[in-house]
């Protein structure tokens, strides 16, 4: 195990560092996908890895089924493939290989064969992105038993969660976010033991309300939490960075203290992972002082124009409005009069 050192890295550089470590320490790893090798990735995340690791890093045709099927098959035969699906939206072209194939390998063979593969992808809206480059699809992946799903947001998590995924013997989807790739550098601890899959990140301690979020949306959630603090509402922000397995115990421990729950995600509200979080908390019987609330994207397609997309995706005001609603237990009958956050 390499010695722990701290480096100042961007999110993209943190991903790159994790990939480099995996390729260095685990000779059975392979890295492939569209433009990942010689070009170094469309977002520059994998640059330099081909030069350093040679044939184990290679470019593929624009063929998501072949990429994911190649991952499943090579994983069944002792390799530990890490593949990139450039946009989560593109995974839908080859969803079969994830849902019908990768998720079943271990089960149908009763453990005789496994598919320890990692799919790196990125999702979410960014200014001007069209409806086929903007979706937040974590619920589709997380719905599938046999698959693991994580969504790293901090630079440290970009490093840690990717390594946990690669080291895991299960097929794992790592959903990154391109708006994070080239943000500020942060100190990132490189090296050290690879963590087990699972767990949450505590992003802000608070006593009045538990806000569960994940992905890039947590930047807005944290900003809203600071504004709420100025109004006297002390929000605890939990980053449920592992969507499957979901660390329900940590969420429940927080809700037990605050008695109030708000879930904020960029994905559509209907059928989103927020519905799962709320259901699990309610089913647990933990006492709640107000009804739990979800904030997600409006039930419409995602438009390209910036001002249109801004209306669809949860904004700071939406989140703050929802915080106020949950904190002050605004009756459900007044939802129509609430800010858009109540939707």
């Amino acid at each position, binding site marked *: 195990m390499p010695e722990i050192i701290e480096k100042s890295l961007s999110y993209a550089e943190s991903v790159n560092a994790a990939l480099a470590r995996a390729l260095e320490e685990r000779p*059975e790893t*392979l890295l492939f996908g569209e433009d990942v090798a010689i070009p170094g990735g469309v977002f520059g995340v994998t640059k330099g890895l081909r030069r350093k690791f040679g044939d*184990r890093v*290679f470019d*593929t*045709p624009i*063929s*998501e*089924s*072949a990429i*994911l*099927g*190649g*991952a*499943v*098959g*090579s*994983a*069944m*035969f*002792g*390799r530990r*493939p890490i593949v990139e699906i450039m946009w989560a939206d593109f995974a839908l072209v*080859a969803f*079969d*290989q994830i849902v*019908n*194939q990768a998720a*079943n390998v*271990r*089960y*149908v*063979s*009763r*453990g*005789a*064969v*496994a598919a*320890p593969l990692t799919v790196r992808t990125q999702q979410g809206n960014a200014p001007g992105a069209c409806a086929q480059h903007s979706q937040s699809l974590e619920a589709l992946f997380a719905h599938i*038993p*046999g698959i*693991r799903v994580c969504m790293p947001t901090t630079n440290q998590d970009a490093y840690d969660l990717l390594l946990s995924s690669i080291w*895991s*013997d*299960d097929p794992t989807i790592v959903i990154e976010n391109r708006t994070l790739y080239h943000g500020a550098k942060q100190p990132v601890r490189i090296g050290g033991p690879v963590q087990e899959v699972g767990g949450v990140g505590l992003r802000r301690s608070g006593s009045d309300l538990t806000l569960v979020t994940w992905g890039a949306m947590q930047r807005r959630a944290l900003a809203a939490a600071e504004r709420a603090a100025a109004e006297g509402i002390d929000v605890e922000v939990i980053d449920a960075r592992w969507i499957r397995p979901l660390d329900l115990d940590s969420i429940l421990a927080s809700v037990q203290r605050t008695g109030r729950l708000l879930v904020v995600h960029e994905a559509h509200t209907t059928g989103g992972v927020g519905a799962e979080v709320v259901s699990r908390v309610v089913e647990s019987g933990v006492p709640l002082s107000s009804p739990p609330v979800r904030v997600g994207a409006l039930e419409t397609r995602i438009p390209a124009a910036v001002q249109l997309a801004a209306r669809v995706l949860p904004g700071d005001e939406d989140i703050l409005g929802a915080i106020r609603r949950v904190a002050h237990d605004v009756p459900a009958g007044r939802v129509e009069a609430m800010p858009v956050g109540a939707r």
Partner: protein
Amino acid sequence: MSTETLLASLEVMHRIRATEETISRLRLSEDIVGSVHLCNGQEAIYTGAVRALDLSRDAVFPTYRGHGWAIACGVPPEAVLAELLGRESGISGGRGGSAYFTAPTYGMYGENSIVGAGAPIACGAALAGRFDGSGRVALASFGEGAMNQGAVHEAMNFAAAMTLPVIFLVENNTYSELTPTRNVVRNDQFFRRASAYGMAGVRFDGNDPDAVREAVADAVERCRSGVGPVLLEAMTQRIVGHYIGDVQHYRPAGELDAAIAAEPIGRAERMARAAGVGDQELAALRQRVADEVDRAAAAALAAPLADPATVEEHVYA
């Protein structure tokens, strides 16, 4: 082909046919339930192909009409029948069933109920071989209907672009499930598509186990020498429906009779007779295999059902 080899092939084909006929009987009695796809008439393909492979390192990825592949790969009929009967002694303890039969310890890495989905996975198996020094050849087998699936096109280009040792074996029985394949393509000579990917493509008689063995052996040699992949097209006919209960009203008059006249077991027996093997010896072989499969069925039926308490096992590591 020596008489000995012919009789060895005949024995495997009998074992496949007897197992399929037993499955059919158990399906009609509803001991086996669900969708079942039999391979009667296509036995020569599996028998011949497996003879050309080295299953200690090679890997087969068949389609859902795959009981014959399992038997040819050496899975005992009892493990096949027990699997379809939901028994603990089934090859996957009832997890795979008829259409997702998976026997990796026999080199049979899973039927696939998603048409053509095994082709990209076979590419992955071949890719792994590039790094593990095994010299593995991966054989993906599917019907000609799968030749119109996107995943198969992707796999063929991927394998060709990467020079992967993959054999794409098309079992051309001329029907895409219930639809004559010639009605849904402009050119039904599928081996000709190989050149579009830069592969070798060969069409041959899929009812002759030796023709199949020869074609697959050539393809294996190409793959092992580093010039793969190869597209093979074995011409055959189903002599049963797409599924049990399919009355095949869509087949023109006379077609089924012609298919039965050309089916591989009768043909191999005629060849054996021509080579001097007596009727008595052929009947004895047939009976010996039938008895073996009968015993397997009795044992599978007597075996305990798979335990529902275990259904949540093997989802994660």
